């Protein structure tokens, strides 16, 4: 039995008395899409932040590809193939879509301590970036400044940038939030094709998407994992139903 690509053990984080992550343990096998669901304020984004290296946990370990990465910063984890997308967009607003992606390609394609040749003339960077833009459905929009893109297009660009880091494990923080119907469908199709190549941890509110895509689902409530299993198992779990009681739309989806 091979070890999981990502193994999280006993992860805890507190802000004063507020425990945002409580003793979370989680295994993600290579090639899986592991969804994490939970009500608002359950600590999903905080968990992603700790897995990606943006936040340091108080205790516990994150082991990625057999290596303890708990103390590594975000940039080092990204270089090892553990990348993330953001829920609140952090795109470089003054850069064009192409430049946003090309910069991510540049990060792993040779030294960036090059001072004279204009980066825009590096055809290899641009070609590869165009490919990722096409993958997410943004072909033809490469010249637009990121800040001027529509909300849905920003989500797509966010994905293109994440893909351009060539991740082995991709942490997706609500990638569908705020997308229109068509854009969401396009992204879901993209995740489906990616599944064969990239392992993913997905945080998402759209339950239809979650249950259509996920191999495994974990449920996070008040910083604790209350259930974990296949989509069918989780759907049938009494504790999950209790946790979601009152959130109508979700219980509909679970129903």
């Amino acid at each position, binding site marked *: 039995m091979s070890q999981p690509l990502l193994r999280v053990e006993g992860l805890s984080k507190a802000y004063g008395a507020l425990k945002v992550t409580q003793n979370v343990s989680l295994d993600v096998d290579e090639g899986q899409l592991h969804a994490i669901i939970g009500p608002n304020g359950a600590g999903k984004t905080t968990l992603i932040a700790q897995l990606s290296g*943006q936040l340091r946990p108080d205790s516990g370990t994150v082991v990625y590809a057999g290596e303890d990465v708990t103390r590594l910063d975000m940039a*080092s984890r990204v270089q090892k193939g553990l990348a993330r997308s*953001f829920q609140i967009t952090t795109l470089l607003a*003054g850069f064009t879509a192409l430049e946003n992606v090309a*910069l991510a390609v540049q990060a792993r394609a040779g030294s960036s301590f090059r001072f004279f040749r204009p980066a*825009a*003339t590096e055809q290899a960077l641009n070609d590869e970036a165009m490919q990722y833009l096409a993958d997410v459905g943004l072909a033809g929009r490469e010249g637009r400044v990121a800040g001027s893109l529509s909300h849905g297009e920003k989500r797509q660009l966010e994905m293109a*940038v994440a893909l351009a880091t060539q991740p082995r494990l991709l942490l997706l923080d609500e990638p569908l939030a705020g997308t229109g119907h068509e854009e969401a469908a396009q992204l879901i199709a993209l995740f489906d094709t990616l599944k064969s190549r990239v392992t993913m941890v997905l945080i998402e509110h759209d339950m239809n998407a979650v249950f259509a895509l996920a191999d495994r689902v974990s449920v996070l409530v008040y910083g604790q994992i209350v259930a974990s299993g296949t989509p069918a198992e989780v759907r049938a779990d009494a504790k999950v139903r209790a946790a979601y009681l009152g959130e109508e739309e979700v219980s509909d989806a679970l129903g």
Partner: protein
Amino acid sequence: MSDLRPRLAPRLKLALVIFALLAVVPPIAQAIGEPFLIVVATRMMVFAIAALSLDLILGYGAMVSFGHAAYLGFGAYAVAILSRAGINDLLLQILAAMAAAALFAVVTGAISLRTRGVYFIMITLAFGQMAFFFFVSFSALGGDDGVALRARSTVLGIPLLQTTQGLFYVTLALLVAVFAGLYRLTLSRFGRVLTGTRESALRMQAIGFRPFPYQLTAYVIAACLCAIAGVMLANQAVYVSPAYMSWHRSGEMIVMLVLGGIGSLTGAMAGALITVGLEEGLARWSEHWRLGFGLILVLVALFSPGGLTGLLRRLNLIRGGK
């Protein structure tokens, strides 16, 4: 193809116009019998070089350094110290000035860059003062009073800087070179990383960049280029004093950038020309010129964010009828 160039092109054109106008200052000044204008224009260009260097870290790197005048001082004192040792060659002096500036910038930059925001502003200010006090108490170099140079530097043995015109054109050449170098640099891979860090340090980390080495490198490059301005300032005044590196100077350099508009290089250059011109103009008018100058700064900060560039942009928008 979409890249940064189409957006920068108008600024590049404006910069070329500025260079062309500067180039004809000496003959015109001679023709109208006001050779003093050449001296003023030389000072303008010296500070334009300094402002350009600051724009790299402040405008492109979002590092608000309040101690940049220290590097002006390193450049000026390099001239004073080397000429006393019998080394008068401008190029050697520039190299030595850059080396000293780089050394100071690596150490203080590495410490300053551990901080952000108001901390960074205060720390760079304090390091600038540290350099200032070093030269103030260095009595061998005249201390507080400064020291006069025996002669201007030579270029490969030729006394090119001896005449007002020679000094002017050498300074202009350096200004063009610094501008061109920085222009290329801001478009390069390195420039993209630096600008990206300004827009979102978090995003840069999320795609695998650690901002620190890039920011520190930019900080050192800016220091070296500012030291060139210091070398020329010493040659222009034939005199070196710690006053070149006082915190008021650092403040003035920020003023130049903000007036001209940050992060466009051309704005920094225009801001420096305008600020020095304004100072010289107001100073002729009244000995209390700082009163008027200060008021202008307060008013610009309150009512015209983005300096002149911001003002022009807003006027453009109005004209565009949007």
